């Protein structure tokens, strides 16, 4: 029998963590991630999980402790948002480089300044090139599903990298929805036992981890790390297929929604995909060939699959929830590279910074080609 609970996205992630039952969770609270660790800490205190929660003094310490725990041989998870990720960023790069398979929930929140607590993706984009996997959930169910899948992706010997499950702050972290939970024992079997290729506490087989690498080896080690992230694309699809057998739900690198015969498509990350789906349904009622391509896996970026999925479209609009001042926003730049040489007409829009809502009429305007580059911004229209 299916166990359906009314849960916020944050609670859904906490329940996935309870079922995964990691050995160690070093974590520091920050809005809008706090409900995740608050819920999880209570579950641990109630004896529902055997995790050792480490109350660290900062996110920098949280990720540092997570690296130590993961490399010592413990399954390790953590969570953060915004400034927490910014403070952690230095160590996120090191976690990826040391190939520590840490799973982290990221409650996406705008970076300061001005200080703000609401959703955008500037925190994710800050660590775009850190070498970690970044998977974006559309809703609480996907946040749960991806959190169950994440350890399998992170710990796969072909990958061995941190995996971030990104869920839009407040929109997902704090909004309650019916979430279907797998039975505890099925999740335990699905994630299996934790192992690490060279545990640092194995004194019989001493190793130097995180070695100094000079110009003669730094480049090669960076390439090795990039190859692991590329390999995560296949691993993600394998894990998604296995998870689908268990749950009946498929969360892969991409979701094509009514895209098969679409001439106009939107590409988006996160909860906005849900809004776009509603507008696609409305437009389809009006016999407009509209579709959505939702990108779940932002890193690794499935360029080839995206180009193939959008091949038949006349126009594609990319929605970025983080700006790149003085340059091209991240998702737009990825799409431009993926579609280079194709006939698809590509437009980029920045929207939703600092929690600004994107409403269905905005999405209709984007589909019609009438939207300004900055959607929902007050002031004069930017020149095209």
């Amino acid at each position, binding site marked *: 029998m299916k166990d359906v609970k009314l849960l916020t996205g944050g609670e859904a992630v906490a329940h996935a963590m309870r079922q995964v039952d990691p050995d160690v969770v070093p974590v520091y609270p920050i809005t809008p991630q706090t409900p995740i660790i608050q819920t999880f800490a209570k579950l641990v205190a109630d004896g529902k999980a055997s995790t050792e929660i480490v109350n660290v003094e900062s996110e920098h310490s949280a990720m540092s402790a997570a690296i130590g725990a993961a490399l010592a041989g413990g399954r390790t998870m953590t969570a953060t948002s915004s400034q927490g990720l910014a403070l952690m960023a230095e160590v996120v790069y090191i976690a990826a480089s*040391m*190939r520590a398979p840490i799973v982290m929930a990221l409650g996406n929140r705008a970076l300061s300044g001005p200080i703000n607590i609401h959703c955008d993706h500037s925190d994710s984009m800050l660590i775009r090139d850190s070498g970690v996997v970044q998977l974006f959930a559309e809703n609480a169910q996907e946040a749960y599903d991806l959190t169950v899948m994440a350890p399998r992706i992170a710990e796969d010997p072909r990958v*061995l990298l941190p995996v971030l499950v990104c869920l839009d702050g407040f929109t997902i972290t704090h909004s309650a929805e019916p979430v279907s939970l797998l039975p505890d024992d099925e999740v335990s079997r699905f994630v299996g036992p934790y192992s690490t290729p*060279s545990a640092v506490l194995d004194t019989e087989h*001493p190793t130097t981890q995180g070695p100094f690498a000079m110009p003669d080896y730094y480049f*090669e080690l960076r390439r*090795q790390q990039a*190859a692991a992230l590329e390999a995560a694309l296949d691993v993600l699809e394998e894990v998604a297929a296995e998870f689908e057998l268990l749950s009946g739900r498929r969360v892969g690198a991409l979701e094509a929604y009514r895209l098969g015969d679409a001439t106009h498509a939107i590409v988006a990350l996160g909860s906005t995909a849900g809004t776009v789906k509603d507008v696609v349904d409305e437009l389809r009622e009006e016999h407009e060939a509209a579709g959505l391509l939702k990108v779940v896996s932002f890193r690794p970026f499935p360029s080839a699959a995206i180009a193939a999925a959008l091949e038949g479209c006349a126009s594609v609009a990319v929605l970025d929830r983080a700006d790149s001042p003085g340059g091209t926003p991240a998702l737009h730049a990825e799409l431009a590279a993926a579609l280079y040489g194709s006939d698809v007409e590509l437009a980029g829009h920045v929207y939703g910074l600092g929690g600004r809502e994107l409403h269905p009429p905005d999405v209709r305007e984007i589909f019609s080609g009438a939207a300004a580059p900055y959607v929902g911004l007050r002031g004069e229209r930017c020149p095209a």
Partner: protein
Amino acid sequence: MAELSAWESLPVAGVVRPIGAPRTNTGGWRTGEKPAVDVSLCVNCLLCWLYCPDSAVTLSGETFTGFDLDYCKGCGICADVCPVAAIEMVPE
């Protein structure tokens, strides 16, 4: 210089294992002075062994035997802590 490995053949995360690593005689960095001991004065307190930052004091069981000059940097801490002045820093 040894041939450098291609990225595909490096260990995951560049983890370095002691197997096959050449013995690195860091004592080659030592400049100026090295410790010399008058064993007849030594009371085997092992303070030099305890304080040596490079673990370059050698023992046989629990008995002081001397210095491993492959690792000694010549810092002189052993001579400084020796309570019976059995250790003296002498020119190389």
